[in-house]
């Protein structure tokens, strides 16, 4: 068995059957799983649309212009991570770090908007307990926010590795995988923005519902 003298590291990328890195494949499979996760929450939201028996209703609460701004910031961060990966692959480390930093900043901005939105809603009396709209809205958007926050932590870790020289063009795939996740979270937000905000914002009092009087 002369071949057994060849040193083989288990799971080393070059030994793959498909040529796609294991970690990247894992991320794609995970995203497939996450589609079902978000899909079920979105289905819940749509199934319970206009079913709340009391206010506040979407037309009483949602503020489309503000959320449009935060949506724009989040979508631009997708462009940012493409550029960060591009410059990392070309070993232009200065620009790579700059763009990765910008992505993190944009993610934080988006989260800031969400914190503001949640506290504003709580202030005017819209909570997860108040009606079906509150329950479905808050679970979906806060779990999306949790995904964004996790992504920010991850990208922060990668930025740290760019500074100490552990993330270079050789293992740019690590940033590419984080990028897949980041793009996915953005795409989910596009669906959420379209369904939870744009088409829902005009929903007023459904048949049989009690009109809502603002507390403040």
């Amino acid at each position, binding site marked *: *068995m002369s*071949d*057994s*003298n*060849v*040193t*083989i*590291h*288990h*799971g*080393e*990328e070059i*030994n*793959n*059957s*498909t040529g*796609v*890195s*294991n*970690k990247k*494949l*894992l991320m794609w*499979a*995970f995203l*497939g*799983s*996450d589609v*079902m*996760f978000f899909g*079920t*929450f979105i289905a*819940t939201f749509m*199934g*319970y649309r206009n*079913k*709340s*028996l*009391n206010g506040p209703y979407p037309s009483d609460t949602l503020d489309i212009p503000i959320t449009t701004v935060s949506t724009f910031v989040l979508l631009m961060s997708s462009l940012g991570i493409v550029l960060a990966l591009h410059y990392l692959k070309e070993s232009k480390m200065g620009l790579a770090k700059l763009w990765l930093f910008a992505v993190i900043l944009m993610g934080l901005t988006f989260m800031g908007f969400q914190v503001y939105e949640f506290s504003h809603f709580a202030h005017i009396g819209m909570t*997860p*307990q108040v*009606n*079906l709209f*509150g*329950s*479905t809205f*808050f*679970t979906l958007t806060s*779990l999306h926010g949790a995904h964004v926050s996790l992504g920010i932590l991850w990208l922060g*870790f990668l930025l*740290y590795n760019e500074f*100490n*020289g*552990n993330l270079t063009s050789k*293992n740019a795939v690590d940033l590419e995988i984080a990028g897949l996740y980041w793009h996915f979270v953005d795409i989910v937000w596009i669906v959420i923005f379209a369904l939870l905000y744009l088409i829902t914002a005009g929903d007023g009092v459904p048949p049989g519902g009690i009109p809502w009087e603002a507390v403040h």
Partner: protein
Amino acid sequence: MSVINKPKQFQLPRIFPRPTGHYGIWAWLGTVDHKKIGIMYGIVSFFWFLIGGIEALLLRVQLSHAEASMISPEVYNQLFTMHGTTMVFLVVMPLSAAFFNLLVPLQIGARDVAFPRLNALSLWVFIFGSILMNISWFTGGAPNGGWFGYPPNSTINFNPGEGMTYWVVGLNVLGVASIAAGLNFIVTIINLRAPGMTMMRMPVFTWMTFITSILIVLALPILGVAGIQLTADRIYGTNFFNSEAGGDPVFWQHIFWLFGHPEVYILILPAMGIVSEILPTFSRKPLFGYSAIVFSGALIGFMGWFVWSHHMFTVGLGPAANTAFTISTMFIAVPTGVKIFNWMATLWGGSIRLTTSMLFAIGFIAMFTIGGLSGVTHAVSPSDAQQQDTYYIVAHFHYVLFGGAIFGIFGGIYFWWPKFFGYFLNDKMGKINFVLMMIGFNLQFAPMHWLGLDGMPRRIYTYAENMGWEGSNIAATLGGFLIALSVLVFMINVFLSRRNKIVAPGDPWDGRTLEWSISSPPPHYNFAKVPEVNHIDDWWYKKYPSLLEGAPKEVLTPKVKVEDTSKVDESKIHLPDLSYYPLFVGIGLSIAALGLMYTYALVTIGLFLVFWGSIGWSTEPVNDPHDEHH
């Protein structure tokens, strides 16, 4: 991917030294070896099999005669809820996972799974999640809302107390374990196949693992969402299933069964894979219709998504929905039938050896066919209206899940035991085990068909004397104890076979797939030389190449022997080092889940452990530098 020997690599300071070696308690707690992980899956889920069995026996004792009062209605509800939950989530799924772990890397010619530490995480999360769910017995009552936890019965208003909260939280923790394992096996099977092992040369068990993993990865998140919604309702007072606020209990049924029906195939496909390995080996024939069986499995996995409402025929979804789901449910019987005919054709004309595992495999075909046929009878929605919530349903799903999944798994245990422990299980006692189980099983569940058609409802703790149900119920209880006896025989068999070891060679059954080409038990690195694959059943044709040229079977003499590993230089084979971080993350996750029900202090401690473990995990090199031999 390798992060070894980088100068400035940050590493979390260690609290304990990294475990090393192949023996001792830390070698098990810190293991990333798929074989050790598989064995631990097997031991823990067998323990839960005994617990779930005891729960079933208590139910049967209570039902053995009319107006019995050995068990109070409250405890009866807890027992049937936990029996179902245990058998589905803590027995059949993890026992299948045990086989995935033990077999898949060996069958595709790999040294381990793609993510060994993630694999360890799945194991620990499963173990602690299963303990978490069963803690509820000692904290004021186990879950009592049935294994599908329908609201409003499972909401806090109608079901106060912690039981059902433990149930949903526990299921979500177990879901994390299953999804992580599913992702791992998808990547392993796609990416770590040996050279020449194309998809259509993979053993059928590996194929079924692949399809099951896809189902797990797509179905378990749906249960996760249902679980989060019910948990939020119970703990934080949201309104998902609160009908006073407009919440719709039927919505839970849709989500649950959208998960629940693919789940049924998650439970049965691995057993189908096991049977597809046993039958050709003991018929000494190739599996009849390999590609038909593979595509039938894939079609079952696909069609399984379009039949969920057949669990809800009596909800009142209307004739259009009921008709559609009747048709799709009847259609899904077709690929299952294809498989059954292929298995029978595999037996046809073979030189059959009736070993214990072969008996279990044949028993599987017969029992699963009965269960499948009764399944078709309630695919017809008008007929189902008569059968809904009766013992007929109980009979049906025990024929497919016990007569199917458990028979297949027992066959697999007898088949692969010599491979992983290096000695045989006693065949005579194995046959006693099989016969007792076969008789006991049919004695217990066959009478339930006519009990159900006679109108006996499920989930009642007793019944009136004048119903005429006593004879069948006594038979069923007797059958239950025969099954218990057969399991006892199995345990004695394991004990005695361990004491008087009959050493098994590497290829004891004249096997067909790659796991039989190496010594028993397999070395920790599996294959000294990564095999090259040229055919389906590659090991078989390496042994008997003349078969490829159409030589008669009579001239069979093996041309190659099981790999001799006595001269392998192990220092040249690099496997990932052990790691205790998966264990810590698993403990942390379960502590955090427990804390959800009591105090945020526990949640904080648990999440801290998860965070600390994850950082330690991701900064820990796969191999410590001192292990390098460059």
